[in-house]
């Protein structure tokens, strides 16, 4: 733990700085002081077992958790206490684990739903070029898409908003390997375009292929930080953390 803190303290140029973040679902205390940093243009992952608090961390950053304390600074601005819509307008976009495709909206309506919060988002055409599968299904009901297509739609629609900071919650969950690869290529492409990404992942092979740094979450705390280049050396430790 002290090692993790020492490492996060060393990062001074972070775009997102999470300090001592506590979070509750109703009465149950789930996050017990999360600390981590994300620099501009980085892809970082939150790794950990089921129930460790990874999804809750993203929800707490987004402001959609019942109660939260601590500090989340984004681009120099404190987000704790802001309404979710103001956090979105600050330039953070969220792609939930359950994907959040609306069944009463067509694919096109789902794609066009999130409003622009900053200039410079991808155009509708650019998103469709990135995910050509969606182009043929624009008129379909959103939830009639396959799981992989729904994930592409869930990612694609937040790229339009102009937010350059993405919170992606398990984008590869339950998808076929070929789709996982496609999403991996998309994330690399987004990184090269200057997007900053926080990725919650269980699929650690996938995480290793796209991320700069990994934070290991356990029982609502960040217990270790592993730069991607040191991953091979830390394999045993990581296996112990994740119980795989």
């Amino acid at each position, binding site marked *: 733990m002290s090692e993790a803190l020492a490492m996060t303290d060393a990062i001074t140029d972070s775009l997102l700085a999470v300090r001592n973040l506590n979070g509750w679902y109703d009465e149950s205390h789930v996050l017990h002081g999360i600390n981590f940093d994300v620099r501009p243009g980085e892809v970082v992952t939150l790794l950990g077992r089921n129930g460790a608090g990874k999804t809750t961390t993203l929800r707490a950053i987004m402001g*959609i958790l019942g109660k939260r304390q601590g500090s989340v600074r984004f681009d120099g601005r404190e987000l704790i206490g802001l309404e979710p819509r103001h*956090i979105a307008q600050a330039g953070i976009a*969220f792609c939930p684990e359950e994907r959040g495709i609306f069944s*009463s909206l067509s694919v096109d309506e789902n794609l066009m739903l*999130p409003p622009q919060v900053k200039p410079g988002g991808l155009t509708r055409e650019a998103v469709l070029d990135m995910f050509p599968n969606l182009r043929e299904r624009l008129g379909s009901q959103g939830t009639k898409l396959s799981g992989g297509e729904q994930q592409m739609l869930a990612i694609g629609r937040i790229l339009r908003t102009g937010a350059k900071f993405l919170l992606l919650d398990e984008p590869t969950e339950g998808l076929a390997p070929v789709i996982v690869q496609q999403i991996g290529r998309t994330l690399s492409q987004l990184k090269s375009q200057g997007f900053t990404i926080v990725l919650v992942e269980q699929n650690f092979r996938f995480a290793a292929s796209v991320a700069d740094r990994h934070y290991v979450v356990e029982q609502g705390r960040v217990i270790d930080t592993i730069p991607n280049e040191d991953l091979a050396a830390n394999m045993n430790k990581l296996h112990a953390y994740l119980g795989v």
Partner: protein
Amino acid sequence: MFELLGIPPQALFGQLLLGLINGSFYALLSLGLAVIFGLLNIINFSHGAQYMMGAFVAWMLLTYTGINYWWALLIVPLVVGATGVVIERLMISRLYHLDHLYGLLLTFGLALIIQGLFRNQYGVSGLPYSIPAELSGGTNLGFMFLPNYRGWVIVASVVVCFATWFAIEKTRLGAYLRAATENPTLVGAFGINVPRMITLTYGFGVALAALAGVLAAPIYSVNPNMGADLIIVVFAVVVIGGMGSILGAILTGFGLGIVEGLTRVFYPEGSAVVIFVIMAIVLLVKPAGLFGRTQ
């Protein structure tokens, strides 16, 4: 003249027309209830009182200021809808984290208060509101005589219902509304102001009730109880159509008006209860309603 099952055609068409008129009001009111229920998840029991307020505000505008029917069609929904906005902001919005029952009790209580205030001020004998000169008289359709005003009510209701359906199902604003109905948290996390949308949606539903009240003023007498009498039937209509379905509310409203009219021709004794009998059958066979989605 031909006869159908021993029924003279004038009686048949007359009752069909009456059924369509009633159906117009059922559709407008159940549409407002469905829109409100969809996003707010509350059953707006003040809907009948807000319909009555629509008729009364139209009457007041004419009586105290001389503002005519046509302006009332525009002004009354705005005024009564604004009272809905205030009620949602001050009261209903405090109940979203509680059980739905509290919203129901609050709006039911408000309905009683509103009706009581109007009864106290204007009594229950009813106030006349005359048909605008442009729509007085009638048209002979060959097979029946159609009073112009009644034809106008049916056309206006169909147009308003269709426009509302179009706005909700086919526009960008409607897409926000549908999305927020499904998952308000995520829509908020996209940067959309969901609380404001909820407030305006309630105001819109109330405005629809008020518009129905203006349309009704020249047909039924303007009376503090006019909403209470109608709203019970409208709730049955909503239950039959299925809560939350826009198209379902419209089609069921018109359809049941016609069914009621036909019952009055073929079995007059049953006309007062036919909608409730249908409601009981629908609840037994398809509890979510004809157009409803099971949760």
